[in-house]
Protein backbone atom coordinates (compact mmCIF):
# COMPACT_ATOMS: atom_id res chain seq x y z
CA UNK A 1 0.00 0.00 0.00
CA UNK A 2 2.64 2.47 1.06
CA UNK A 3 4.67 1.47 -1.94
CA UNK A 4 1.89 2.05 -4.40
CA UNK A 5 1.10 5.35 -2.70
CA UNK A 6 4.66 6.47 -3.26
CA UNK A 7 4.40 5.32 -6.84
CA UNK A 8 1.20 7.25 -7.52
CA UNK A 9 2.66 10.27 -5.86
CA UNK A 10 5.98 10.32 -7.67
CA UNK A 11 4.67 9.69 -11.15
CA UNK A 12 3.16 13.17 -11.12
CA UNK A 13 6.54 14.65 -10.31
CA UNK A 14 8.39 13.35 -13.31
CA UNK A 15 7.07 10.53 -15.44
CA UNK A 16 3.72 12.15 -16.10
CA UNK A 17 4.44 15.68 -14.95
CA UNK A 18 1.80 18.03 -16.21
CA UNK A 19 1.75 20.01 -18.40
CA UNK A 20 4.93 18.79 -20.04
CA UNK A 21 4.08 15.16 -20.47
CA UNK A 22 0.34 15.53 -20.83
CA UNK A 23 0.07 18.63 -22.96
CA UNK A 24 -3.19 19.82 -21.44
CA UNK A 25 -4.17 22.69 -19.23
CA UNK A 26 -1.90 25.03 -21.11
CA UNK A 27 -3.83 28.24 -20.62
CA UNK A 28 -3.01 28.82 -16.95
CA UNK A 29 0.53 27.68 -17.58
CA UNK A 30 0.98 30.38 -20.18
CA UNK A 31 -1.05 33.05 -18.50
CA UNK A 32 0.10 33.06 -14.92
CA UNK A 33 3.80 32.35 -15.15
CA UNK A 34 4.95 35.93 -15.46
CA UNK A 35 6.43 35.45 -12.02
CA UNK A 36 7.31 32.61 -9.70
CA UNK A 37 4.83 33.82 -7.14
CA UNK A 38 1.90 33.75 -9.53
CA UNK A 39 2.93 30.37 -10.86
CA UNK A 40 3.22 28.76 -7.46
CA UNK A 41 0.02 30.40 -6.25
CA UNK A 42 -1.85 29.02 -9.19
CA UNK A 43 -0.22 25.66 -8.64
CA UNK A 44 -1.29 25.50 -5.03
CA UNK A 45 -4.83 26.52 -5.86
CA UNK A 46 -5.00 23.81 -8.50
CA UNK A 47 -3.46 21.26 -6.15
CA UNK A 48 -6.09 22.00 -3.54
CA UNK A 49 -8.88 21.47 -6.04
CA UNK A 50 -7.21 18.34 -7.40
CA UNK A 51 -6.78 16.70 -4.02
CA UNK A 52 -10.25 17.59 -2.74
CA UNK A 53 -12.07 16.57 -5.87
CA UNK A 54 -10.03 13.39 -6.19
CA UNK A 55 -10.89 12.50 -2.61
CA UNK A 56 -14.58 13.17 -2.98
CA UNK A 57 -14.87 11.46 -6.33
CA UNK A 58 -13.08 8.45 -4.96
CA UNK A 59 -15.31 8.33 -1.86
CA UNK A 60 -18.43 8.55 -3.96
CA UNK A 61 -17.21 6.31 -6.72
CA UNK A 62 -19.61 3.50 -5.89
CA UNK A 63 -22.55 5.83 -5.38
CA UNK A 64 -22.38 7.92 -8.53
CA UNK A 65 -24.21 6.29 -11.44
CA UNK A 66 -22.09 6.01 -14.57
CA UNK A 67 -24.44 8.04 -16.71
CA UNK A 68 -24.23 11.21 -14.68
CA UNK A 69 -20.68 10.80 -13.54
CA UNK A 70 -19.28 13.67 -15.61
CA UNK A 71 -22.00 16.00 -14.37
CA UNK A 72 -21.31 14.93 -10.82
CA UNK A 73 -17.57 15.44 -11.20
CA UNK A 74 -18.15 18.87 -12.63
CA UNK A 75 -20.33 19.86 -9.68
CA UNK A 76 -17.72 18.60 -7.25
CA UNK A 77 -14.87 20.35 -9.00
CA UNK A 78 -16.79 23.59 -9.44
CA UNK A 79 -17.61 23.62 -5.76
CA UNK A 80 -14.00 23.36 -4.68
CA UNK A 81 -12.96 25.90 -7.27
CA UNK A 82 -15.41 28.38 -5.84
CA UNK A 83 -14.14 27.67 -2.35
CA UNK A 84 -10.60 28.41 -3.49
CA UNK A 85 -11.81 31.52 -5.24
CA UNK A 86 -13.50 32.89 -2.15
CA UNK A 87 -10.70 31.97 0.18
CA UNK A 88 -8.06 33.55 -2.02
CA UNK A 89 -10.12 36.64 -2.40
CA UNK A 90 -10.37 36.90 1.35
CA UNK A 91 -6.79 36.12 2.33
CA UNK A 92 -4.44 36.58 -0.63
CA UNK A 93 -6.14 39.37 -2.44
CA UNK A 94 -3.18 40.70 -4.52
CA UNK A 95 -2.51 37.22 -5.85
CA UNK A 96 -6.20 36.78 -6.53
CA UNK A 97 -6.12 39.92 -8.64
CA UNK A 98 -3.09 38.79 -10.59
CA UNK A 99 -4.47 35.36 -11.36
CA UNK A 100 -7.84 36.88 -12.21
CA UNK A 101 -10.09 34.84 -14.42
CA UNK A 102 -7.76 31.85 -14.27
CA UNK A 103 -8.92 30.82 -10.83
CA UNK A 104 -12.51 30.13 -11.86
CA UNK A 105 -11.06 28.54 -14.97
CA UNK A 106 -9.48 25.76 -12.91
CA UNK A 107 -12.89 24.24 -13.33
CA UNK A 108 -12.19 23.54 -16.99
CA UNK A 109 -8.60 22.50 -16.43
CA UNK A 110 -8.35 19.22 -18.24
CA UNK A 111 -5.97 17.84 -15.63
CA UNK A 112 -8.50 18.08 -12.83
CA UNK A 113 -11.35 16.46 -14.68
CA UNK A 114 -8.88 14.08 -16.28
CA UNK A 115 -7.61 12.77 -12.93
CA UNK A 116 -11.13 12.45 -11.54
CA UNK A 117 -12.20 10.44 -14.55
CA UNK A 118 -9.05 8.43 -15.16
CA UNK A 119 -7.86 7.81 -11.62
CA UNK A 120 -10.06 8.75 -8.71
CA UNK A 121 -13.16 7.09 -10.08
CA UNK A 122 -11.32 3.74 -10.06
CA UNK A 123 -9.10 3.90 -6.99
CA UNK A 124 -9.24 4.10 -3.25
CA UNK A 125 -9.36 7.48 -1.49
CA UNK A 126 -5.83 7.16 -0.18
CA UNK A 127 -4.35 6.43 -3.57
CA UNK A 128 -6.47 9.17 -5.10
CA UNK A 129 -5.11 11.70 -2.66
CA UNK A 130 -1.58 10.56 -3.44
CA UNK A 131 -2.31 10.89 -7.14
CA UNK A 132 -3.89 14.31 -6.78
CA UNK A 133 -1.08 15.53 -4.57
CA UNK A 134 1.58 14.22 -6.93
CA UNK A 135 -0.02 15.73 -9.98
CA UNK A 136 -0.71 18.97 -8.18
CA UNK A 137 2.84 19.32 -6.90
CA UNK A 138 4.19 18.41 -10.31
CA UNK A 139 2.00 21.10 -11.83
CA UNK A 140 3.10 23.58 -9.19
CA UNK A 141 6.75 22.78 -9.82
CA UNK A 142 6.29 23.21 -13.57
CA UNK A 143 4.59 26.55 -13.13
CA UNK A 144 7.21 27.62 -10.64
CA UNK A 145 10.06 26.63 -12.95
CA UNK A 146 8.53 28.39 -15.94
CA UNK A 147 7.80 31.38 -13.74
CA UNK A 148 11.40 31.40 -12.54
CA UNK A 149 12.79 31.42 -16.07
CA UNK A 150 10.40 34.08 -17.26
CA UNK A 151 10.66 36.29 -14.21
CA UNK A 152 14.42 36.15 -13.96
CA UNK A 153 15.11 36.89 -17.62
CA UNK A 154 12.14 39.12 -18.23
CA UNK A 155 12.22 41.13 -15.06
CA UNK A 156 15.63 40.41 -13.59
CA UNK A 157 14.13 39.10 -10.37
CA UNK A 158 13.02 35.90 -8.70
CA UNK A 159 10.24 36.21 -6.15
CA UNK A 160 10.74 39.93 -6.45
CA UNK A 161 14.42 40.10 -5.55
CA UNK A 162 17.03 40.96 -8.19
CA UNK A 163 19.19 38.08 -9.36
CA UNK A 164 21.52 39.50 -12.00
CA UNK A 165 22.81 42.63 -10.39
CA UNK A 166 21.99 46.22 -11.16
CA UNK A 167 23.63 46.27 -14.61
CA UNK A 168 21.10 43.85 -16.03
CA UNK A 169 18.56 45.13 -18.50
CA UNK A 170 15.56 42.82 -18.36
CA UNK A 171 14.68 40.84 -21.46
CA UNK A 172 11.06 41.98 -21.33
CA UNK A 173 10.03 39.70 -24.16
CA UNK A 174 9.95 36.84 -21.70
CA UNK A 175 7.13 38.25 -19.61
CA UNK A 176 5.07 39.23 -22.66
CA UNK A 177 2.52 36.93 -24.24
CA UNK A 178 4.75 35.72 -27.09
CA UNK A 179 7.53 35.02 -24.64
CA UNK A 180 5.24 32.70 -22.71
CA UNK A 181 4.65 30.51 -25.74
CA UNK A 182 8.27 30.51 -26.88
CA UNK A 183 9.57 29.83 -23.39
CA UNK A 184 7.17 26.95 -22.80
CA UNK A 185 8.03 25.53 -26.22
CA UNK A 186 11.73 25.60 -25.50
CA UNK A 187 11.26 24.10 -22.04
CA UNK A 188 9.26 21.31 -23.60
CA UNK A 189 12.19 20.71 -25.94
CA UNK A 190 14.51 20.55 -22.95
CA UNK A 191 12.22 18.02 -21.26
CA UNK A 192 12.19 15.95 -24.43
CA UNK A 193 15.97 16.01 -24.51
CA UNK A 194 16.28 14.93 -20.90
CA UNK A 195 13.46 12.45 -21.18
CA UNK A 196 15.24 10.61 -23.96
CA UNK A 197 18.17 9.62 -21.80
Amino acid at each position, binding site marked *: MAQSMVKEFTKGLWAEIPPFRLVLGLCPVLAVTKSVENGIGMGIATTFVLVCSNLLVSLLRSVI*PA*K*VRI*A*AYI*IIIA*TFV*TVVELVMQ*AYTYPLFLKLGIFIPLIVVNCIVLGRAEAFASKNSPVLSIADGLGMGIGFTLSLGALGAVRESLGNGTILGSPVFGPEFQPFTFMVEAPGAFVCLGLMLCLMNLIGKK
Partner: protein
Amino acid sequence: MREMINMVIVLTVLSAFSGGLLAAVKTGTKEQIEQQVLKFQKAPAIKQILSDVSNDPLQDRFKIMDNDQELTFFVGKHDGKPDSVIFETSGKGFSGDIGLMVGINIDSDEIIGVCVTTHSETPGLGSRAKDDPKFVSQFAGMKMDKNLDIKKNGGEIDIMSGATITSAGVSLAAKKAQEIYTRLKPEIEKQTAQMAN
Protein backbone atom coordinates in the same frame (compact mmCIF):
# COMPACT_ATOMS: atom_id res chain seq x y z
CA MET B 1 -36.36 3.43 -13.04
CA ARG B 2 -34.30 2.72 -9.97
CA GLU B 3 -31.27 3.98 -11.80
CA MET B 4 -33.11 7.08 -12.84
CA ILE B 5 -34.11 7.87 -9.28
CA ASN B 6 -30.64 7.11 -8.14
CA MET B 7 -29.24 9.61 -10.63
CA VAL B 8 -31.59 12.36 -9.59
CA ILE B 9 -30.94 11.76 -5.93
CA VAL B 10 -27.19 11.77 -6.29
CA LEU B 11 -27.17 14.98 -8.32
CA THR B 12 -29.59 16.69 -6.00
CA VAL B 13 -27.65 15.75 -2.91
CA LEU B 14 -24.43 16.85 -4.53
CA SER B 15 -25.91 20.15 -5.58
CA ALA B 16 -27.36 20.75 -2.17
CA PHE B 17 -24.07 19.92 -0.53
CA SER B 18 -22.29 22.22 -2.91
CA GLY B 19 -24.74 25.06 -2.47
CA GLY B 20 -24.60 24.74 1.28
CA LEU B 21 -20.84 24.61 1.44
CA LEU B 22 -20.45 27.58 -0.83
CA ALA B 23 -23.02 29.64 0.95
CA ALA B 24 -21.21 28.96 4.20
CA VAL B 25 -17.82 29.87 2.81
CA LYS B 26 -19.28 32.94 1.19
CA THR B 27 -20.73 34.26 4.41
CA GLY B 28 -17.57 33.39 6.25
CA THR B 29 -15.39 35.40 3.90
CA LYS B 30 -17.64 38.31 3.03
CA GLU B 31 -16.27 40.80 5.53
CA GLN B 32 -12.71 39.86 4.90
CA ILE B 33 -13.09 40.27 1.13
CA GLU B 34 -14.47 43.76 1.39
CA GLN B 35 -11.63 44.71 3.68
CA GLN B 36 -9.11 43.29 1.28
CA VAL B 37 -10.49 45.14 -1.69
CA LEU B 38 -10.20 48.41 0.15
CA LYS B 39 -6.85 47.59 1.63
CA PHE B 40 -5.05 46.49 -1.50
CA GLN B 41 -6.68 48.41 -4.26
CA LYS B 42 -7.58 51.71 -2.78
CA ALA B 43 -5.63 52.17 0.41
CA PRO B 44 -2.11 52.57 -0.97
CA ALA B 45 -3.27 55.10 -3.53
CA ILE B 46 -5.26 57.05 -0.97
CA LYS B 47 -2.40 57.02 1.48
CA GLN B 48 -0.05 58.31 -1.15
CA ILE B 49 -2.29 61.19 -2.14
CA LEU B 50 -3.43 62.14 1.34
CA SER B 51 -0.31 61.55 3.35
CA ASP B 52 -1.00 64.06 6.07
CA VAL B 53 -4.65 63.56 6.98
CA SER B 54 -5.81 63.24 10.51
CA ASN B 55 -8.50 60.63 9.88
CA ASP B 56 -8.69 57.26 8.12
CA PRO B 57 -10.22 57.98 4.74
CA LEU B 58 -11.01 54.29 4.32
CA GLN B 59 -13.48 54.63 7.15
CA ASP B 60 -14.88 58.02 6.19
CA ARG B 61 -16.47 57.30 2.88
CA PHE B 62 -19.78 57.90 1.19
CA LYS B 63 -21.40 56.85 -2.04
CA ILE B 64 -23.13 58.84 -4.75
CA MET B 65 -25.13 57.43 -7.60
CA ASP B 66 -23.93 59.07 -10.80
CA ASN B 67 -26.28 58.04 -13.59
CA ASP B 68 -26.37 54.30 -13.02
CA GLN B 69 -22.88 54.13 -11.62
CA GLU B 70 -22.13 54.07 -7.95
CA LEU B 71 -19.10 56.14 -7.01
CA THR B 72 -17.34 55.84 -3.69
CA PHE B 73 -15.77 58.98 -2.30
CA PHE B 74 -13.18 58.88 0.44
CA VAL B 75 -12.89 61.90 2.59
CA GLY B 76 -9.70 63.34 3.98
CA LYS B 77 -9.69 65.64 6.99
CA HIS B 78 -7.16 68.13 8.14
CA ASP B 79 -7.53 69.12 11.72
CA GLY B 80 -10.92 67.49 11.76
CA LYS B 81 -12.11 69.50 8.83
CA PRO B 82 -13.14 67.41 5.83
CA ASP B 83 -11.49 69.38 3.04
CA SER B 84 -10.63 66.79 0.43
CA VAL B 85 -12.24 63.92 -1.44
CA ILE B 86 -10.72 61.07 -3.37
CA PHE B 87 -12.45 58.90 -5.92
CA GLU B 88 -11.54 56.55 -8.70
CA THR B 89 -11.97 56.95 -12.45
CA SER B 90 -10.55 55.09 -15.38
CA GLY B 91 -9.07 55.66 -18.81
CA LYS B 92 -8.18 53.49 -21.74
CA GLY B 93 -4.55 52.41 -21.67
CA PHE B 94 -2.23 50.42 -23.85
CA SER B 95 -3.79 47.16 -22.80
CA GLY B 96 -7.03 47.56 -20.91
CA ASP B 97 -8.32 50.13 -18.50
CA ILE B 98 -6.16 52.13 -16.15
CA GLY B 99 -7.73 52.90 -12.79
CA LEU B 100 -6.81 56.29 -11.35
CA MET B 101 -7.43 57.65 -7.87
CA VAL B 102 -7.85 61.41 -7.98
CA GLY B 103 -7.75 63.53 -4.88
CA ILE B 104 -9.31 66.99 -4.98
CA ASN B 105 -9.28 69.76 -2.47
CA ILE B 106 -12.86 70.94 -2.01
CA ASP B 107 -11.91 74.38 -0.87
CA SER B 108 -9.55 75.34 -3.65
CA ASP B 109 -10.85 72.99 -6.36
CA GLU B 110 -7.28 71.93 -6.99
CA ILE B 111 -6.08 68.45 -7.63
CA ILE B 112 -4.06 67.29 -4.66
CA GLY B 113 -2.59 64.33 -6.44
CA VAL B 114 -3.39 61.32 -8.58
CA CYS B 115 -2.32 57.73 -8.30
CA VAL B 116 -2.71 54.74 -10.56
CA THR B 117 -4.51 51.85 -8.89
CA THR B 118 -5.05 49.09 -11.40
CA HIS B 119 -3.53 48.67 -14.82
CA SER B 120 -2.18 46.03 -17.10
CA GLU B 121 0.38 48.14 -18.95
CA THR B 122 3.70 46.81 -20.16
CA PRO B 123 6.22 46.45 -17.36
CA GLY B 124 8.91 49.05 -17.79
CA LEU B 125 6.93 51.12 -20.27
CA GLY B 126 3.38 51.97 -19.36
CA SER B 127 3.80 50.64 -15.86
CA ARG B 128 6.00 53.63 -15.08
CA ALA B 129 2.79 55.63 -14.79
CA LYS B 130 2.36 53.98 -11.43
CA ASP B 131 5.71 54.88 -9.99
CA ASP B 132 7.24 57.64 -12.10
CA PRO B 133 6.84 60.67 -9.80
CA LYS B 134 7.75 63.06 -12.60
CA PHE B 135 4.72 62.05 -14.56
CA VAL B 136 1.97 61.84 -11.97
CA SER B 137 3.12 64.87 -10.03
CA GLN B 138 2.23 67.04 -13.00
CA PHE B 139 -1.41 66.72 -12.08
CA ALA B 140 -0.99 68.09 -8.59
CA GLY B 141 -2.10 71.66 -8.24
CA MET B 142 -4.11 71.66 -11.43
CA LYS B 143 -7.35 73.60 -11.22
CA MET B 144 -10.58 72.31 -12.56
CA ASP B 145 -10.40 74.55 -15.62
CA LYS B 146 -7.01 73.31 -16.77
CA ASN B 147 -6.87 71.06 -19.79
CA LEU B 148 -5.39 67.85 -18.48
CA ASP B 149 -4.86 66.30 -21.89
CA ILE B 150 -1.37 65.50 -23.06
CA LYS B 151 0.44 68.20 -24.97
CA LYS B 152 0.12 66.45 -28.29
CA ASN B 153 -3.66 66.75 -27.95
CA GLY B 154 -3.46 70.38 -26.92
CA GLY B 155 -3.31 69.92 -23.15
CA GLU B 156 -0.71 70.61 -20.52
CA ILE B 157 0.63 67.21 -19.58
CA ASP B 158 4.06 65.99 -20.66
CA ILE B 159 4.07 62.37 -21.70
CA MET B 160 6.36 59.68 -20.38
CA SER B 161 8.67 59.03 -23.29
CA GLY B 162 7.96 55.69 -24.90
CA ALA B 163 4.50 55.42 -23.42
CA THR B 164 2.30 57.96 -25.11
CA ILE B 165 -0.77 55.81 -24.95
CA THR B 166 -0.53 55.12 -21.26
CA SER B 167 0.05 58.82 -20.64
CA ALA B 168 -3.00 59.69 -22.66
CA GLY B 169 -5.03 57.11 -20.73
CA VAL B 170 -4.07 58.56 -17.40
CA SER B 171 -4.85 62.05 -18.64
CA LEU B 172 -8.21 60.89 -19.83
CA ALA B 173 -9.02 59.45 -16.41
CA ALA B 174 -7.99 62.70 -14.73
CA LYS B 175 -10.16 64.67 -17.14
CA LYS B 176 -13.06 62.40 -16.35
CA ALA B 177 -12.49 63.08 -12.67
CA GLN B 178 -12.56 66.82 -13.31
CA GLU B 179 -15.80 66.42 -15.14
CA ILE B 180 -17.44 64.23 -12.50
CA TYR B 181 -16.26 66.45 -9.70
CA THR B 182 -17.58 69.58 -11.35
CA ARG B 183 -20.91 67.93 -12.00
CA LEU B 184 -21.36 66.42 -8.55
CA LYS B 185 -19.81 69.22 -6.51
CA PRO B 186 -23.01 70.28 -4.72
CA GLU B 187 -23.77 66.73 -3.68
CA ILE B 188 -20.18 66.19 -2.55
CA GLU B 189 -20.18 69.30 -0.43
CA LYS B 190 -23.42 68.24 1.17
CA GLN B 191 -22.04 64.83 2.06
CA THR B 192 -18.69 66.07 3.37
CA ALA B 193 -20.39 68.70 5.48
CA GLN B 194 -22.14 65.93 7.33
CA MET B 195 -18.81 64.37 8.15
CA ALA B 196 -17.45 67.39 9.90
CA ASN B 197 -17.23 66.83 13.58
